[in-house]
């Protein structure tokens, strides 16, 4: 058969595979005990991230020292506060019911007096010795289709209790670079898992792939000297031994800043930080 009498037609065949193109228009670990879900619901809200210092003191540091000094401060945002990005929770009827209308992203939370919340502040250098993981677990709860808390810290090896308080399912997916990642399904209300990170890492992002807006950050440090700023931007790192330290403040949108501070045995020194957009 020659081209002029070609009966075979490629065009209809290609048209057949093109049919699907029309659809485009509509496109809008470990197997150990710690991984096993527990059905009992843990009571109480997540503890303040600054608290583990006390827990560490209870356990008694193996070699690292604690003291009576502290570093406090207020972290403020300088400049025009960026308008909060908004999103809808319409992908899940329960979430939408919990938060009708637009919801503000939690990445930038600035108080009326410019205090910046959700900043992870920790001693980056200057601490020597090793510190045992606190006996008390840190808690992260999936409640109202958001994480509580949004930013928290743990000591390496400290248990993290992961709760699902929602009557909808979540998956909790960690995205560490140095630690072992996990992705756990939590389809039942009241479900609980316990996980931990064994290596220091600031920060480990945590997300829910079912509800794309849900994200949290966990700072993992080798000692208990860290805090997360409160709604008014204030923080306190307690029980420090005397010494010279580099304090780092981390914010998910505005990056990191560091300052050096020297504290005596019972000093309380102020180390304020100021973040600016795009700085």
């Amino acid at each position, binding site marked *: *058969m*020659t*081209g*002029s009498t*070609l*009966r*075979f*037609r*490629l*065009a*209809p*065949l*290609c048209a*057949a*595979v*093109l*049919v*699907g*193109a029309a*659809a*485009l228009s509509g*496109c*809008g670990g470990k197997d150990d005990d710690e991984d096993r879900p527990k059905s009992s619901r843990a009571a109480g809200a997540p503890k303040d991230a600054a608290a583990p210092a006390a827990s560490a003191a209870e356990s008694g540091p193996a070699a690292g020292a604690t003291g009576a000094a502290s570093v406090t401060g207020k972290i403020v945002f300088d400049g025009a506060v960026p308008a909060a990005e908004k999103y809808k929770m319409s*992908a*899940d*009827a329960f*979430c939408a019911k919990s938060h009708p209308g637009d919801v503000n992203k939690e990445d930038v939370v600035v108080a009326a007096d410019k205090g910046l919340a959700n900043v992870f502040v920790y001693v980056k250098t200057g601490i020597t010795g090793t510190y045992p993981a606190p006996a008390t677990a840190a808690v992260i709860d999936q409640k109202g289709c958001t994480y509580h808390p949004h930013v928290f810290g743990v000591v390496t090896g400290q248990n993290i209790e992961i709760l699902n308080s929602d009557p*909808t*399912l979540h*998956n909790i*997916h960690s995205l560490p670079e140095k630690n072992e*990642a996990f*992705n*756990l*399904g939590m*389809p039942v209300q009241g479900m609980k898992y316990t996980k931990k990170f064994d290596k220091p890492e600031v920060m480990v992002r945590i997300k*829910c*792939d*079912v*509800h*794309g807006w849900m994200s949290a950050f966990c700072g993992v440090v080798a000692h208990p000297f860290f805090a997360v700023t409160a709604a008014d931007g204030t923080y306190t790192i307690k029980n420090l031994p005397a010494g010279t330290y580099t304090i780092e403040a981390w914010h998910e949108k505005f990056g990191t800043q560091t300052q050096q501070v020297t504290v005596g045995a019972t000093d309380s020194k102020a180390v304020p930080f100021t973040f600016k957009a795009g700085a």
Partner: protein
Amino acid sequence: MPEAFLRIGTRTVAACVFLLLIAGALVTSTQSGLAVPDWPLSYGKVMPPMVGGILYEHGHRLVAAAVSTLVGLELGALLFLLKGRKTVKRLAALAFIAILLQALLGGLTVLFLLPPAISSAHAALAEIVFALTAVVALMCSKGWEDLRISSNAEEARATLRWTVLATVAIYLQIVLGAVMRHTGAGLAIPDFPTSFGGLLPTFEEISRPGVPIHLAHRLGAAVVVVLVFLGAKALSGLRSPFATLGAAWAGLVCLQAFLGASSIWSGKAVPLTVAHLAVGALCWVIGVLLSVALAAGFSDKLGRD
């Protein structure tokens, strides 16, 4: 009657595989790949609540199961209804094996938390499955066995060479795109047509994570456009439908380049990234179909010389 049934059936299967590709693109574009942490079940069930990212991930699994069944049925139908034609049957068998392997890769990438190597292999094999089913459909077309294209040997060789070269380049570009997508490098260079404000990234910029693969995909796009245009030019010397398909091929590649640029400009808007993947798959399969048809149509000339 069986011929007509097979002709329509095989085309339908190829179209369904294309829809499966789109379903997969929706999973990655909405970052829902791990919305269901277990496999083969979903939250321990066959049918979890279809909320949020589960709609895309579990939806993809359901579509994949249906399409895999169709590919299996296609193989069965060809084996029972078609006399002779070993090549078609072998290709259909290969398609069925490939789609089963594809399902396994899909499961593994979920269980291992989306390692780029497995996720990219999943994407690359998907295109092979699409091409195999499309070629099976082509070979079940009317007149396939008598296909001859009038041309001289030199012209035949040149046309086939450019078409195959462009098709291979498209596939390599798709694999590059898959690696870029699965390593999170889609916006590693945030501007287009400039790169960090310049014509090309500086050495310091190239050393940043994701920039080399992103840059390779951009440069690859330029190579693909040139090769497809050369292929289309060579095809223009033939009679329809080859000349027409060549022109359509060149048009689709231009659209694909625009969709790639638009994906960057929009900050990876889901409809655009999905469309980019879909049009890329169409460019690839048209290249494969043209290459296979040309090789068959020119076989007497190529064999003689």
